[in-house]
């Protein structure tokens, strides 16, 4: 299948195999495609056996941090007499990222199966799938799928007839980027303002409702049934020979100034240059790529020299000065003004700051004002130093990393496109604006 375009021969379709396939959405169709076989097998294993397989597979968190999933699950102590919870983070709101949306739209049962296996593996009887409020269609499809699975006895008080309880519930967010941060998500789920919490205590000790909790991204959980079906070795082999730390397939969302935007699934370690030019079709006609933000808007911006030499896995992106993050790849071409786009990103973070920490509340707001002033042709050379100084005060000093995420693109922008900043300041106007638009 493929959505919105046919798959490229160099893709490896695991999670995205049924994107665009309407027959895969319902329970019957999903079962015909091998659905819930892994859950049945999982419920016949011990939780520790499942954790071991996931550990061996090398699966790492797909939400941004890349923490090893099996290790995270192993922090949940069995037999502590407390209720355990699994939270599925479906608050996909990192600019550039839209992969979880497609998993939920086309293969909602894949996610439910992953949630059910994950719950059982960590000793939880309840899983909440927290979906951002704007995702009306994924919300609807997940709600329907949960009702179907419950009515068929796949999940519920007697999951697959095993006598084990696995409840999965959909919880709708209400518009807040920060609720994708795991501790903010838990606060929001509890009916509070979505302010991130100070760690420790870590969620595995005291998470949602004060109980041991694991939070996993949609894509992470959706990968688990495939790992159980095909084995850890199968998953582990999808990696660069010289880098066993990143394994499996990865969904990449591609957007911005590129010929074929959309989601692509490739094995870890795929060459970024081939990806951008071959799979995604290169820049729009008559344009050239100028910059790539490879992992969602919170990671350092790459110039093309860096991007074209990068390999698409956790370590490969770090080696070229950025991060894999949520693999939401924003491509910017030579017709775009970097100052304007970085100012727009800063405005995003200022809007989304929960305002709990001073460095973030003040820093994102002032950085935005200064960036917009420069973009309007009213900046001074001193502003560049001020921005970097504000950025330093915003980094590593707050409860969560939203503040850092605002500072990152500004710092990499000034470092790599200083000429564009200076042209705005010296020319007292944006050089990219046409006379008519100015």
């Amino acid at each position, binding site marked *: 299948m493929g959505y919105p375009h046919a798959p490229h021969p160099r893709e490896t379709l695991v999670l995205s195999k049924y994107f665009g396939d309407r027959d895969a959405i319902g329970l019957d169709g999903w079962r015909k495609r091998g659905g819930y076989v892994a859950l049945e097998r999982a419920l016949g294993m011990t939780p520790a056996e499942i954790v071991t397989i996931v550990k061996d597979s090398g699966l790492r968190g797909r939400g941004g941090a890349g923490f090893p999933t099996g290790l995270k699950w192993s922090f949940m102590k069995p037999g502590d007499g407390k209720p355990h919870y699994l939270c599925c983070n479906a608050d996909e*709101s990192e600019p550039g990222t839209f992969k979880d949306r497609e998993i939920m739209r086309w293969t909602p049962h894949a996610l439910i199966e992953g949630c059910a296996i994950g719950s059982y593996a960590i000793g939880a009887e309840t899983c909440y799938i927290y979906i*951002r*409020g704007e995702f009306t269609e994924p919300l609807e499809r997940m709600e329907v799928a949960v009702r179907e699975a419950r009515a068929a006895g796949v999940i519920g008080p007697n999951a697959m007839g095993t006598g084990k309880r696995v409840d999965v519930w959909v*919880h709708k967010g209400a518009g807040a980027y920060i609720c994708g941060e795991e501790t903010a998500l838990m606060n929001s789920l509890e009916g509070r*303002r979505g302010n991130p919490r100070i760690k420790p205590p870590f969620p595995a000790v005291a998470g949602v409702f004060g109980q041991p909790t694991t939070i996993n991204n949609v894509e992470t959980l959706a990968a688990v049934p495939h790992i159980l079906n095909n084995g850890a070795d199968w998953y582990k082999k999808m990696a660069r020979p010289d880098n066993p730390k990143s394994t499996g397939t990865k969904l990449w969302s591609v957007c911005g100034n590129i010929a074929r935007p959309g989601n692509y699934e490739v094995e870890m370690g795929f060459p970024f240059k081939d990806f951008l030019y071959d799979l995604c079709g290169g820049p729009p006609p008559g344009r050239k790529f100028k910059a790539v933000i490879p992992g969602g808007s919170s990671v350092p911006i790459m110039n093309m020299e860096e991007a074209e030499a990068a390999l698409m896995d956790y370590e490969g992106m770090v080696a070229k000065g950025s991060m894999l993050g949520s693999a939401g790849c924003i491509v910017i071409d030579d017709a775009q003004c970097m100052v304007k786009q970085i100012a727009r990103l800063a405005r995003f973070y200022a809007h989304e700051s929960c305002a709990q920490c001073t460095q973030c509340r003040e820093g994102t707001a002032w950085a935005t004002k200064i960036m917009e002033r420069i973009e309007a042709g009213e900046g001074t050379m001193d502003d560049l130093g001020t921005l970097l100084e504000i950025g330093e005060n915003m980094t590593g000093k707050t409860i969560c990393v939203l503040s850092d995420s605002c500072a990152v693109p500004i710092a990499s922008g000034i470092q790599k496109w200083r000429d564009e900043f200076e042209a705005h300041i010296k020319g007292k106007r944006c050089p990219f604006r046409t006379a008519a638009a100015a």
Partner: protein
Amino acid sequence: MAISKEMGGTHAESHATHGSAEHAHGEPHEPVFVGERRKQLDELLTRYPTKMAALLPALWMLQEDRGWVSEAGMAEVAEVLSLTPAYVKGVVTFYTMYHQHPVGKYFIQVCTTSPCNVCGAEDVVNAFLKHTKCGELGVTSEDGRFTVIEVECLGACGFATPVMINSDFIESVTPEKVPDLISKLT
């Protein structure tokens, strides 16, 4: 830990009485959580270990039924979940999707964050402002039909520019498509 009823129960009731006058807009508040809605809420409460966890869903029900989240509506939600109205308002004001005042019949949200911005989202916003006759962001058109706002990343960046009209999610909107989209709204 849920805020106990004792912390604000009395206040909640008195506030609800005041709120029913709804002085800002002159409309009395008809209770939302009766009949079918009450059943839905009760079912929802079985999913969570605390009543407070049903706050966001309860506010969604209120907004779906009334079009926005009024002070009196918040007081009712506080009452049914044993919270204080002040607490509920604190939560409402954190999230962007709860309308704290009435909006147009069609609430139009256009994504303008960077991935859409580089694909011309600002032109889409301007087309909506022009063709709805709203003129300005956040201002409801004179006929009460439209409110247009810019929204931060809708999470459909590969389909620039995504637009939400109420709960309809529309992909790949260009300025040229705007007049047709609006003409379909009655």
